[in-house]
């Protein structure tokens, strides 16, 4: 009997059985003004510590995983565990060190400040 339970538990732990999370691209809004690019992404159920934001060489990658805490047997299920992941191209002129992200009510808000050199300037014409 002991052996039988061992066998079943081992089967559950088998690496091959571990399913990869389905990947979904989160819905995003992208805004821009003179100082920054602002990105809003819907990631319901993703905790702060499960989000990674990566800016590298003009490539912005956002990713967040959600694992639902549930109790009981499912009567219906319209969403599940998921990995939200999406990659964007961003201008090289983003100040990578000053990128700042906030997460509120399942919406990720990412501020990508433009480098000083990339900001548009109005040039005054001096009259002589």
């Amino acid at each position, binding site marked *: 009997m002991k052996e039988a339970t061992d066998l079943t538990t081992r089967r559950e732990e088998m690496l091959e059985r571990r399913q990869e999370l389905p990947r*979904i*691209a*989160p*819905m*995003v*809004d*992208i*805004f*821009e*003004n003179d100082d920054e690019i*602002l990105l*809003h992404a*819907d*990631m*319901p*159920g*993703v*905790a*702060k510590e499960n989000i990674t934001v990566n800016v590298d060489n003009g490539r912005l990658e956002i990713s967040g995983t959600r694992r*639902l805490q*549930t*109790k*009981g*047997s*499912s*009567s*219906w*299920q*319209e*969403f*599940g565990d998921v990995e939200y992941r999406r990659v964007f191209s961003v201008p090289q002129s983003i100040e990578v060190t000053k990128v700042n992200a906030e*997460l509120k*009510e*399942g*919406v990720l808000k990412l501020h990508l400040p433009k480098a000083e050199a990339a900001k548009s300037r109005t040039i005054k014409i001096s009259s002589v």
Partner: protein
Amino acid sequence: MWTRVNDIDRMFDAMDLFRSRLNRMFTDYSGAYGEDFGWRDMNGSPRTNLYDSGDTIQLIAEVPGLSKDDLNIRIQGNYLELSGTRNSDAPQGYKAHRVERDFTSFTRSFTLPADVNADKIEAVLHDGLLTLVLPKAEAAKPKQISIS
């Protein structure tokens, strides 16, 4: 006899074709950004999961960007109504490059599998997920029957 085997073969071929078409339909559907409904179902309401654990019912809904003041929950017997409004969070003075997220109001009603005790419902909003824990009414709870 041969013709019969052939018929069966042909039937399986047709089924395979049908299955591959179905599979393709699903990948087409989930692959495109624009056609996905995001956190909402086809009717524009939040997607939900319902779990039954005997004494309680647990309902989870995806409501990203909604605060607790934006949500309204009404319950009567085994009828539950969830409504809410998602207000735009577009900042002022910015130029929009891409707008995929939508901001509307919704109402969705459910018939729960059992009557619930409306006074003891717990509702928690966390990271854009609304979790309702609904204790079943005393009469609807499962009972242990002892054998005499």
